[in-house]
């Protein structure tokens, strides 16, 4: 390749004038704007899923195993209107929240130990590897022994289902905090709990939030499964019990209505709690897109 020399061009200097008035932001076409509403897009997905369910169920034509979407919706509507489902959901949510919060607290303590000492680290790794794979039924006898039949045992198995995944995620998040940021925090004289709370937790927030989401979901799973076994003492069963009872009476549409309520609550919590949390934290801080 022969040596290529660029042309020599005239120079220029201009005085930069005061910045003119900002041109008005061009409005986006309405379809684009509409499409930018996450609620709308997700609503559409939900509608499509409901449609697919309806079609599938009608095609299977086996409403003892799989009722149609409309049947379920009707059962859900009735249950909500009569207040029964509302009450059951209230009972379940109360226990769920207790167990969830206790689990979150326990996970926090465990990871705080893990970041502050070698023994804590080993403890976390060992306990998680040991207990995380154990199904809740394995802990049931022990729960009965220690907490009796009732809320105590439910909270215990809920903690078991929230604690380990959240601790794993939180700790992985802590370990991924950039060295410079750690040094900056320690440089301010932060140590111990303040260091964890003011540096590690915010820096690891994306991992913690996804741990919280997973923990939330698994708390639901566990609660519903546990309520089937523990059932209702003194007539106060939650959603799991509702599902169990209706299953026993072969009201499959009500079973699915109960499950649908779980889904609806899940979507609401995701949409309201977690999305807001992400928006005002990690997304605002540029830690996640």
């Amino acid at each position, binding site marked *: *390749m022969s*040596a*290529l*020399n*660029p*042309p*020599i*061009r005239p*120079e*220029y*200097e*201009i005085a*930069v004038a005061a*910045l003119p008035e*900002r*041109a008005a*932001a061009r409005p986006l076409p309405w379809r684009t704007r509409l499409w930018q509403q996450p609620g709308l897009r997700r609503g559409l997905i939900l509608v499509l899923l409901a449609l697919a369910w309806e079609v599938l169920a009608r095609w299977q034509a086996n409403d003892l195993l799989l009722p149609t979407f409309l049947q379920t919706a009707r059962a859900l509507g009735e249950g909500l209107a009569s207040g029964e489902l509302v009450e059951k959901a209230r009972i379940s949510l109360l226990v769920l929240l207790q167990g969830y919060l206790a689990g979150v607290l326990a996970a926090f303590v465990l990871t705080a130990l893990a970041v502050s000492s070698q023994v804590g680290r080993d403890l976390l790794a060992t306990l998680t590897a040991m207990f995380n794979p154990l199904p809740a039924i394995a802990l049931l006898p022990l729960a009965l022994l220690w907490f009796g039949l009732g809320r105590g045992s439910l909270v215990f198995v809920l903690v078991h289902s929230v604690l380990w995944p959240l601790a794993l995620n939180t700790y992985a998040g802590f370990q991924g905090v950039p060295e410079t940021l750690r040094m900056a925090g320690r440089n301010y004289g932060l140590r111990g709990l303040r260091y964890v709370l003011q540096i590690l937790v915010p820096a690891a927030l994306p991992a913690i939030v996804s741990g919280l989401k997973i923990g939330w979901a698994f708390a639901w799973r566990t609660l519903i499964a546990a309520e089937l076994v523990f059932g209702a003492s003194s007539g106060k069963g939650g959603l799991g019990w509702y599902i169990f009872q209706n299953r026993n009476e072969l009201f499959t549409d009500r079973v699915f209505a109960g499950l649908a309520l779980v889904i609806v609550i899940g979507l609401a919590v995701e949409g309201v709690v977690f999305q807001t949390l992400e928006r005002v934290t990690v997304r*605002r801080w540029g830690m996640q897109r």
Partner: protein
Amino acid sequence: MPSRGAETVATVTPLHPPREAAPLLEVDGVSLEYRTPDRLVRATHQVSFEVHRAERFVLLGASGCGKSTLLKAIGGFLSPVEGEIRLDGRPVRGPGPDRLVVFQEFDQLPPWKTVRDNVAFPLVASGTAARREARERAAHWLDKVGLARFADAYPHQLSGGMKQRVAIARALAMQPRVLLMDEPFAALDALTRRRMQEELLALWDEVRFTLVFVTHGIEEALVVGSRIGVLSPHPGRMRAEINSHEFGLASEGAAFQAAIRRVHGLLFDQAIEPVPADAARRTA
């Protein structure tokens, strides 16, 4: 040093075929904005300039005036809210290995690749070279930037300046049509910086790539660039374009000093913000 000296460039006459006369890169009235939750930040306002084939175009401007943003837009990572960026007459649509970027940040090296693989990877990924050849080219360029001994280290084991040198080696090994460099030598000591400048210009001499280079050193701008674009403080607008093809690595004399002063004047004759009033009061 290589044959390229002040005279060589100075004696060039527009002998090129007509095709060459069209600029390779056109930045045409480009405004760039960042959308934050609270407000719209305008980074550059209606910036226009042209870069011809084999030109070494340097962007100078105050901190925060939008140089990096402009470079990212040319790289195809950002699209203008106004105006257009054209390469070879066609609007830039997205990033590509024909416009390799050396970023300003230290975290541009994938931490999961050794220094050698970091240099070789883009060659392989973009299909520029086969694996074997890529590794050879990587070894060659690591040697040039003085990091041959660190070929098997991972990026987190390097100092700031060493990381930047890996990024430079990676870019030079690729020999892209357009090379976009964002303060590549800022973290280097004087000697290493000088050596890097030499390597860059020697490679230019050889393959005549087109360079867009951001720096804060006026001297460096004159030495590295053949043409210098000066941006106003935030939000960046074009202030001036001047030629600097006469100056090379050996430049020192009065003309060079005058050019430095001239650019300095262009850059700073209007202060960004007046020095706070209380600055004078504060003395022990």
